[in-house]
């Protein structure tokens, strides 16, 4: 069980290195938070709400006109509730208000000193969390002012869960997980090269350690780290409002296989790089275009065909496509089986590549 001892050593070396660990964990989390909030900001600045006017009086039309003048709101009128509900379910709206029959007369009555109860029913998208709340609060304030009364407004709330999810999180989370796993490449390659450069590997070569011990010794801790990382990223994503429609375990398998691919790539680079100073840039030269072209940050469908083909050579694109479909549309295994085979093939291939490179690039002489 030499490999096990060596694996323990490598895990401890990483675990006790706050800089490496922080980089591995922190960078994707920071991305997730920044992008998550950046996208939310955009939604907030233009809260899109709907209004269904059943009253159709000059008073109700005046109320809608006042709402329209609020800068933070984008108000669209709908003829009936089903149309508004459809838009809400499609994710177009944060919420919509139903202005009931008798709204106008009640408002007029109250303006003359009456004490009529006025109902406004609001249906909102629960999954957008505080965004509809904000819009509702604005409308509530406008309504109170418009009616010029103390508090006759009776706001009836109803939350729904629409089909389409908040776009940015779906799009972002699989990308960030895969990007986060890509950071395994420089982390592991650096470790291997440092061990080589500082004489640790040569020292082990004077002992009866075999190449399979080195292989497993380096890859096992990283596989464990892969699992830990994916769990952490997903937990944070859930806290930020991610909802998974498909089988999470299936998505997890895709992430896991990408982790294995990255470990294979890292061993290949680590075996051949001569020094840490050389390994680092080589990793990033590989990593940055891969991350860009994987579709993690923007859709790559409109790229130049050459770039597209390049992107579609590597496993990252497929893992991303598959995990996005699983998370957002609940795709079953048979719907992502092609992607699965490609990513699995790459995982096996890259690991094999790493193995061969390791035997060649390190060792005797």
């Amino acid at each position, binding site marked *: 069980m030499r490999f096990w001892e060596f694996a323990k050593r490598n895990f401890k070396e990483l675990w006790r290195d706050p800089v490496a660990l922080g980089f591995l964990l922190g960078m994707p989390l920071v991305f997730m938070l920044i992008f998550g909030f950046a996208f939310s900001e955009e939604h907030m600045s233009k809260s899109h709400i709907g209004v269904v006017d059943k009253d159709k009086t000059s008073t109700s039309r005046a109320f809608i006109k006042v709402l329209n003048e609020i800068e933070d709101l984008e108000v669209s009128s709908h003829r009936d509730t089903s149309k508004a509900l459809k838009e809400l379910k499609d994710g177009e709206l944060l919420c919509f208000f139903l202005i009931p029959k008798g709204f106008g007369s009640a408002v007029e009555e109250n303006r003359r000193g009456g004490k009529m109860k006025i109902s406004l029913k609001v249906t909102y998208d629960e999954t957008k969390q505080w965004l509809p709340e904000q819009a509702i609060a604005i409308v509530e304030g406008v309504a109170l002012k418009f009616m010029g009364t103390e508090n006759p407004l009776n706001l009836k709330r109803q939350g729904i869960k629409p089909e389409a999810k908040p776009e940015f999180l779906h799009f972002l989370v699989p990308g960030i997980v895969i990007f986060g796993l890509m950071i395994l490449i420089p982390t592991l390659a650096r470790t291997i090269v440092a061990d080589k450069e500082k004489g640790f590997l040569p*020292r082990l070569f004077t*002992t009866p350690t075999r190449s399979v011990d080195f292989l497993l010794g380096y890859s096992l801790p990283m596989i464990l780290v892969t699992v830990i990382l994916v769990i952490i990223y997903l937990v944070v994503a859930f806290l930020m409002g991610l909802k998974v429609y498909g089988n999470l375990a299936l998505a997890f398998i895709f992430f896991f296989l990408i982790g294995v691919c990255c470990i294979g790539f890292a061993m290949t680079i680590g075996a051949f790089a001569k020094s840490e100073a050389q390994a680092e840039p080589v990793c990033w030269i590989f990593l940055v275009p891969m991350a860009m072209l994987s579709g993690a940050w923007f859709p790559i469908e409109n790229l130049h065909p050459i770039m597209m083909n390049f992107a579609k050579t590597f496993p990252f694109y497929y893992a991303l496509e598959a995990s996005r479909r699983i998370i957002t549309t609940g795709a079953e295994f048979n719907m992502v089986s092609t992607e699965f085979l490609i990513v699995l093939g790459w995982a096996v291939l890259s690991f094999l590549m790493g193995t061969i490179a390791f035997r060649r690039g390190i060792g005797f002489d």
Partner: protein
Amino acid sequence: MSDDFAVQTFELAKEFNGLRAVDGIDLKIREGELFSLLGPNGAGKTTTINMLCCLLKPTKGTARVAGYDVLNEPGKVKGHIGVSPQETVLSERLNSWENLSLFGKIYGMSSKEIRERSEELLERVGLLDRAKDQVRKFSGGMKRRLNLILALIHDPQILFLDEPTLGLDPQSRRAIWEYIESLKGKKTILLTTHYMEEADFLSDMVAIIDSGKIVALGTPNELKKKFADTGVLRVSTKGLRKDILEELKAEYETVNETAEELKIVRDDLDLKEVVDFLYSRNVSVYSAAREEPTLEDVFLRITGKRLRD
């Protein structure tokens, strides 16, 4: 017959891009012998050791270690040796116990064996108190001591110690010497060092290597005797002027000046001749005595005084 020797090399040679680091050496080290390989920087000592422990492939020739050929049976060789490299190599974020345990486990020792042996070794080199600290927090000398005992954890038959006392304070160096001495006869040890008194004190056999070639071989006494015609004269003087010193230097091969003391080295050295020479130039001589040459004198005489790369 080669099995009589724990280590034997056969015209062992290593070339690095045309540079002959080791140039066809034949060494024979008996079982239980402490063999010192001495030589100036870049002489090829480390390269030789690296070939013996299967780290470097010889360009020419081969070697047998513990009865196995380094080219054909490196796995067998590795099971019988312990190597303390010249560069300190440790797992920096592990503590001493963990470092020792990693190596112990590699050699298939049980946890209990490892713990007992580690404690003994850590005690020996005075690291027991700090054994739980991560190694990166150690001083250079502490790392150096751990570096050495990592090679000893599995109690190997054959030890390659490449400058084991490099950078140690005098106390630690003594402790290591004593420990190495206690292993004498039980283990076969190939040692390199730049401390001549260390080699003199410890070695059964000494080989001096220069530019990849063995240039002298024998016990420390044999070597000193062989070069005993090299007279060494220690002279204590007063009134030695620079021009007289220059004159002396022209006449004798080696003149070392330490304050008022002169050390004069030359083959067939005549005490009277030197003293007369100094008197004739009005230099008072307080004392003058012939000295036995030390290993260092032998070393300098054989390898010259030119600085190496």
